[in-house]
């Protein structure tokens, strides 16, 4: 009995020593999770558009959604709202900050979809359906003269849109695209 106790103490001591000397990498407390369980959070969209969700919408549909959910801050037809204009300035980028709009400055159409779905409308982000986000994105591209009002945006047609300022950036980081 006495011997058993001693051995227990030695074993306990050994475990404590091990815990103290084991390298940090030995700590593994993350739980496995499937990509499908992550899906509700996996909302970032790259220029290749591969993560774009199903759904579709055109500027015709987007105009009504815009008027209802967006125009109070961004103005009628995306002009002169309290949160600034989203149109204009194409070809006049260097003539002042107000000319750096979605149409004149943003290099990728996928970023518009990503940002509207992630953060807008400001008071209730995430409240638009994916098809509504496609439609609002189509509307914003339309008022900037980039697509026609009938152009239907979906996972295939959105990433192939070439934004006016697509070639307007130089990367300070070596491995970025460009």
């Amino acid at each position, binding site marked *: 009995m006495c011997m058993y106790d001693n051995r227990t103490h030695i074993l306990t001591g050994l475990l404590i020593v091990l815990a103290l000397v084991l390298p940090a990498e030995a700590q593994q407390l*993350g739980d496995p999770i499937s990509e499908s369980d992550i899906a509700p959070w996996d909302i970032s969209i790259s*220029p290749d558009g591969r993560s774009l969700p199903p759904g579709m919408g055109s500027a015709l549909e987007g105009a009504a959604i815009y008027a209802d959910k967006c125009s109070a801050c961004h103005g009628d037809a995306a002009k002169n709202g309290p949160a600034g204009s989203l149109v204009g300035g194409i070809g006049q980028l260097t003539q002042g900050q*107000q000319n750096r709009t979605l149409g004149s400055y943003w290099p990728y159409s996928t970023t518009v979809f990503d940002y509207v779905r992630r953060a807008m409308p400001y008071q209730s982000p995430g409240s638009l359906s994916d098809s509504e986000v496609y439609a609002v994105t189509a509307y914003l591209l339309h008022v900037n003269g980039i697509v026609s009002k009938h152009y239907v945006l979906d996972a295939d047609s959105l990433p192939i849109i070439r934004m006016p300022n697509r070639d307007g950036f*130089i990367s300070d980081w070596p491995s970025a695209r460009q």
Partner: protein
Amino acid sequence: MSSSCFSPGTEDRAAGGGLINRRWLLKNSLLAVPVGMVTTQASSDPLRVPEWSSAPGLIQSQYGQPSPFESHVTRPVLGLFPEGFGDGSGVSFTPLEKLAGTITPNGLFFERHHSGIPEIDPGSHEFVIHGLVERPLVFSVSNLLKYPMVTRTAFVECARNSFFNSLQEPQQRSAGELHGLIGNAEWTGVPLAALLEEAHVDLAGSWLLAEGADAAKYSRSIPISKAWEGEVLIAFYQNGERLRPEQGYPMRLVIPGWQGSTSVKWLRRIKVMSDATYARDETSKHTLLQKDGLARQFTFELGVKSTITTPSFGGPPVREGLQQVRGVAWSGAGKIAKVEVSADGGRSWADAVLHGAILPKAMTRFAIAWHWDGSPSILMSRATDDTGAVQPIRTDWYEPFAAGQIYHLNAIQSWGVSQDGEVSNVYV
């Protein structure tokens, strides 16, 4: 007659405009106090015993607060849109001119939010690593707190800091309002690299997308090589206590030396990617538009910078005689190597004394003695870091950029001192 105790002579000058060298100060250290503070007459009243010395004071408290007499030391708050439109998308500034030392108190550390401050219950917060990894993982905060942690001091500076000085006319604002989108703190947390190792990153993984749990789901792309360097922390503690809600509670990234916006707050997700995601805040924002119409992108590292905080706009008028000029300096590239001060608008410069520990990518204090003769002067500070980078004058900084370019403004701050001692922001 050579220099007297109260008025240094020409041989004591370190540079024009009355900047004094250290030798004179050492020689006269006991007398090196502002002239206005030297009292030669006896006080007319006997000392009185104040009430706080005559009865027991307040009892101890569970969480200490600053003295009520310091209630003016606050963060100036600035919304970016008219009230009612995007409230919670704004900034508050660290009141640099009201602080000393290098550590920013947690309650005065600048804020930048894109959709307000989320009230996160750490018991319900989850953090995932996924994408180009063998083992997508989800972590609870309580488990993350069990990992080995490291502690380091680093500044976090908004890439838009000092934006008022990009305007055509100099704005009359305090040092904090001009340059206070920066705070310096001791951060404690888990190196991101340890958690990436646990997830087994694929060889194709070269960028990370970091995302917050706020309503804006603020997101930025970060080259994975930065995380492998080991400096990138998932911080849980700031200056010894758990992060404040406005600083990312319960967890945030801290990337020393890089644009503050890459230190994503309320961190909920890291996705390992083969390329950058080109999120809104690395395309539409945080890009530096040049005169030629091209914009620089992924300009992560913040430049070498400094500002004089005493004297500065809004502070007490400068008095004639001897006084200390002081301020803060920092660089995203490394340590501060030297800070020079000019009192004659940049015609001559003298080395300031650097105080305390000089840590890489952290705030450093500087000070220099100045004997003001009452004539209009212009005070400037110019920092150099240990890579040899020197803080530029404003016109040189602006030279490559289009009008209205506001990011990464690290130009020299100039404070004009008028004949009556009033301090104003001036462009030189």
